[in-house]
């Protein structure tokens, strides 16, 4: 894998561990999907291999769609490792709680626009949370962690993706989740046509109605 000075573990996620490393004089992120002891090795290997191959492919396609993602330098399927560009900046998760209302609106609008571009291109991110979005010093927002993503065009998958975004806002930023999601949809509408947006929103409602998300007749007698 080339020269590598002591990688520094910066995030031990559930799905992968992220290391900050020096690779040929460049600051890089090394994303390693370590075997999970709880899973059977055959299943574990299949999941790790699949994600290691698909993630860089989707990240590359996202760039084509006009969504900034870290540049991939190296993929080693055998050790389930991806070496990619290190984006210096702040997670949107952190930013949303710190900035003014206006700035929050701007960020969410932009995020919506980026999601729109992905969807228009048939890319489903699969894990749209604010910790998977990083703003660099130039104000450019990068999407990371496409490990659960897929290349799909169906309305259903787009609906689930948007629904995940909504849920992520509600679980992490519940104080201003509503205004944020409205801004996201506003940005999303800039890229996709009215019909697609409407269908997407209807789909979210349908997913929510599948049984476990909202009361049909809130407060009504049942």
């Amino acid at each position: 894998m080339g020269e590598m000075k002591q990688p520094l573990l910066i995030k031990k996620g559930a799905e992968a561990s992220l290391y900050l490393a020096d690779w040929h004089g460049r600051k890089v992120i090394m994303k390693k999907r370590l075997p999970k002891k709880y899973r059977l090795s055959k299943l574990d290997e299949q999941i790790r291999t699949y994600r290691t191959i698909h993630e860089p492919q989707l990240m590359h396609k996202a760039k084509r769609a006009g969504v900034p993602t870290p540049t991939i330098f190296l993929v080693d399927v055998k050790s389930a490792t991806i070496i990619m560009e290190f984006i210096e900046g702040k997670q949107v998760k952190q930013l949303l709680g710190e900035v003014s209302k206006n700035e929050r609106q701007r960020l969410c609008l932009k995020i919506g626009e980026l999601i729109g571009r992905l969807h228009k291109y048939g890319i489903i991110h699969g894990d749209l949370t604010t910790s998977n979005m990083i703003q660099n010093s130039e104000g450019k927002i990068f999407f990371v962690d496409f490990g659960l993503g897929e290349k799909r065009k169906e309305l259903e998958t787009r609906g689930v993706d948007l629904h995940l975004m909504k849920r992520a806002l509600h679980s992490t930023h519940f104080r201003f989740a509503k205004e944020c999601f409205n801004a996201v949809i506003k940005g999303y509408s800039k890229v996709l046509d009215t019909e697609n947006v409407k269908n997407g929103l209807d789909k979210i409602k349908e997913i929510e109605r599948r049984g476990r998300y909202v009361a049909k007749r809130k407060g009504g007698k049942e």
Partner: protein
Amino acid sequence: MKQKKARENYCLGIESTADDFSVGISTFNGEILANIISAYMPPEGGIHPREAARHHAETASKVLEEAFKKAEIKPQDLSIIAFSQGPGLGPCLRTGATVARALASDLGIPLVGVNHCVAHIEIGKLKTDAKDPVTLYVSGGNTIVSAFDSGRYRVFGETLDIALGNCLDVFAREAGLYQKPSMPFGAVVEKLAAKGKKLVLLPYTVKGMDMSFSGLLTAATNLLKKGEYKLEDLCYSLQETVFSMVTEVTERALAHTEKREVLLTGGVAANKRLQSMIKAIAEEHDAEFCVVPSEFAIDNGAMIAWTGVLAYKQGIATPIEKSFVKLRWRLEEVEVPWVK
């Protein structure tokens, strides 16, 4: 809330969200004096809400009587009545609510409507001494990964369609298996899975923090009908896949919240394989693994009684005119002021 002198305060809790009708009695200090559960076993197919409700209505007085006998108290000794107000099946919830209202108004004591999912978490904390866990609640009706934050139990991940327990149940029924009161479908599948050796790859669907089991169920059922694989191997593969999915999501919630405990509850918590997987991720993240004893992991009245106590101590009560059942009452809609 002032403790009355000379005698204990008791809460009676009624649980009737789905196929179980149960009455539990708890003291205000969390001592469970009785927990009587009467399960409805459909002769065939899944739970028919109206038939289950009929069972509840028929069995209610007997279960109540048994609970009082076990707790060695009289109805007049009760301080409050708690009941599961939702989420659940309408006819079943209404039957429990009717019994609760009748008791409360007859005895002239307060009524407390309890959220079923909150109750599962609270009894789990009471029985395992967990303080602030990430909870994986898996049953026939629910699959929820949650953790406390700012006044409520927030939902981090859940199923996008059917519940994990439901997935196992339907597969077992499709395979022509039978369940008994002492051995529900989940246990039957677990027993067969223990004999399985060959892993058949099935759709593994994790979307962000959410999961989907319906496609996987269809795939497993189709393979079953083809008859190319042994039932033991299919049970084994089904279990391995669905448990890996919930474990992955639970691990993500654990990594995200950085909590120090993982609590496993709900009917499926009894499964040893699932326990070992959740235990493994708990160890990985230096968290304590807690599993609720099965009597309190399945739907039970004791959890409703205890949660009723917690709410009532915070001044929460439900006037009869507001005691209508809430079929789709989400976990995160409920404020839990007793959790700090």
